[in-house]
């Protein structure tokens, strides 16, 4: 046996795996607003069947005391996924470490790169943006403030899009980094879209590299919203720096 056990897997028809290839086994939990009892369990079974589960089994159900019932269900998912046809848009850049980034600036940009970052709207979760920008960084990866050749300005939390754009214009920013952590009721989508509109209204959208990040941000989503790139969990300063610097050169914004 090698490192992977996928030898027998038909990657065009992938199914969940419990303890036997293609058994389809899936665990579900959910609450239905119906009173506890056999009928409730049957409702859960019907729902699971509609989801495409064979032999759904309610292994646990609990009366929530207000006429609602919670279920834990196992069943065999009959849907398959064609794994071979999946293409996920990715940030295409060779990641450079801090020293390489610094050398890249020296050699290809030959001036200080100005980056403005903020946690916008009413979002007060600065830990993410601090991880990217602040000197001490995150998880042993230094932040942008530590990079020679990068002037990084961290505006902190609860920054309105207007204030952010004004700052970017003031300092003639090469890149804008926006962090959005709170996603309840898709508030991040609203915030992020508004920023793009504002930058367009100000006529500077094309003059900056526009980047967003956060635990629920993917590169794909970012692009849909009109950003150049999006960074999710486990991003570090060097990922962002490498991308921004390479893009600046690529787009001849230097």
């Amino acid at each position, binding site marked *: 046996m090698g490192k992977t056990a996928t030898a027998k897997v038909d990657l065009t028809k992938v199914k969940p795996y419990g303890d036997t290839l293609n058994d389809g086994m899936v665990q579900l*939990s*959910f*609450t239905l607003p119906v009173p506890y009892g056999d009928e409730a369990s049957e409702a859960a079974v019907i729902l699971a069947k509609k989801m495409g589960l064979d032999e759904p089994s309610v292994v646990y159900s*609990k009366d*929530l*005391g*207000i006429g*609602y019932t*919670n279920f834990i269900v196992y069943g065999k998912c009959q849907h398959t996924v064609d794994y071979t046809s999946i293409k996920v848009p990715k940030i295409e850049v060779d990641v450079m470490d801090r020293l390489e980034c610094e050398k890249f600036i020296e050699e290809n940009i030959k001036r200080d790169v100005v980056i403005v970052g903020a946690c916008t709207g*009413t*979002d*007060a979760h*600065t*830990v993410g943006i*601090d991880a990217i920008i602040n000197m001490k960084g995150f998880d042993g990866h230094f932040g942008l403030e530590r990079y020679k050749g990068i002037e990084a300005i961290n505006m*902190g*939390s*609860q920054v309105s899009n207007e204030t952010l754009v004004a700052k970017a214009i003031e300092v003639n920013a090469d890149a804008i980094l926006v962090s959005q952590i*709170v996603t*309840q*009721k898709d*508030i991040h989508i609203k915030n992020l879209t508004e920023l793009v509109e504002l930058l367009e209204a100000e006529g500077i959208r094309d003059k900056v590299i526009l980047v967003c990040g956060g*635990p629920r941000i993917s590169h794909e989503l970012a692009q849909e919203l009109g950003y150049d790139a999006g960074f999710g969990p486990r991003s570090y300063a060097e990922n962002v720096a490498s991308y921004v610097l390479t893009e600046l050169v690529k787009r001849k914004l230097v």
Partner: protein
Amino acid sequence: MKSKLNLDPKIIDSARSSAARIAQDMQKFIDRHTTVSTERTVLRLLGIDGVDDFDFPLPNVVVDAIKDGGGLPRGAAYWIGNAMIQTGLSPQEIAERVAAGELDIMKLPTVSAKEAEEKIMPEVKKSLELIKAQTEKRNNYLETIGEGKQPYLYVIVATGNVYEDIIQAQAAARQGADVIAVIRTTAQSLLDYVPYGATTEGFGGTYATQENFRLMRRALDEVGEEVGRYIRLCNYSSGMCMPEIAAMGAVERLDMMLNDALYGILFRDINMQRTLVDQYFSRVIIGYADIIFNSGEDNYLTTADAYEEAHTVVASQFINEQFAVLANIKEERMGLGHAFEMDPNLENGFLYELAQAIMAREIFPKAPLKYMPPTKYMTGNIFKGHIQDALFNVVSIWSEQSIQLLGMMTEAIHTPHMQDRIYALENASYIFNNMRDLGEEVEFKKDGIIQKRAQTVLKDAEELLKEIEKDGLFHTLENGKFGGVKRPRDGGKGLEGVCVKDEQYFNPFIPLMLGGEK
């Protein structure tokens, strides 16, 4: 009782004395100032409520008028007392006329402060009686239907819709919750007014409004009677309207309120002068209304490292205790905060957490300590999360905490869904019962990892407090000692709402509340 951790009582005394001096020093500043929200609170307590045609609350309308007229240094109570004398109207009627543009209270003839104060005294007394009646009602409930065992099971609801919140709260109460905290919508703490009426739209929380308080209080009384256990209601006396919400809470019989100026400064970037002044009045109200306040030290550990910075939590607890003493809050109502926030990958991390939790218990023996669950190191892995929460529950029952904020396995994902809360309650109930008397059974090795950890953290806290005593609290905050966050003394939101009192200033509530029988 002998310290299980072999803590040196002299160090505890020394830390406490430093904190007392830090608080007293700040109190001098506080006593010289008032704020727009403090004055709005006076109006609310005088019975002014409702909104104008633009949905702007009448207390704001009136205080803005006073402020615009340059009258804030004398205090809103004076102007209302004066207006009552001049117009013969009640405070509410006065406010309504002001809002309608029919009355300019700054343009009326003026009486002496003493006359104005005498005039409003009956309104003040009425207000205090209302609050006292609520305290009696609570005590009556506690005597008749009783309450849950400590640590209280505390869960949040945060749907954004007060009616959904009620459904969730009642479900939780039926599953064993002792305290329901209604989380506020994301941006409310930055609003310089309190929204009005029942609300159904919020992000990651529900607006704190008086009507929402009332609806939830009624729902909890109802379910409490049914399950035979008084269900406590918690909300936030924090942000730009700190004392106003305290007043609303007092009137609507909230039982617990998050109340900590330092949180607003560090995590909401509220101006430190503003919020420290606001905090004072809010704590006086909280003390008078027999509400438990919860401080926010746990938050430090979300931006600073929980192992490295544990002593900042203890230092802050000492300071919060002394601020509470100055506001005449009983020890039994001081819900000082701390948290279980170390990296789960830390070898022996549990031992350190345990040491610190027992230490907090020993230093503040009568305080209803508020113990916060793991949040920072929670991930989308709900199964792992559920056992991180389990270890947190183990520490809590072992160290005899008072208020257990239940960790949710979905902490890193969303505000709790109904089922998350139910499984969290189950987690804590199981562990508390299954380990009930563990704390009594166990002793610690002399100078072992656990004892040493507690001793070190205490010693570091004592030293930090000495430094703060030397530098002053404002300066300390400017230097980023708490949570690793630096805030300038004149920065942040709300400084424009602070002013120096003039000599005739009076706030009729504070002396009565401080002196009032408790």
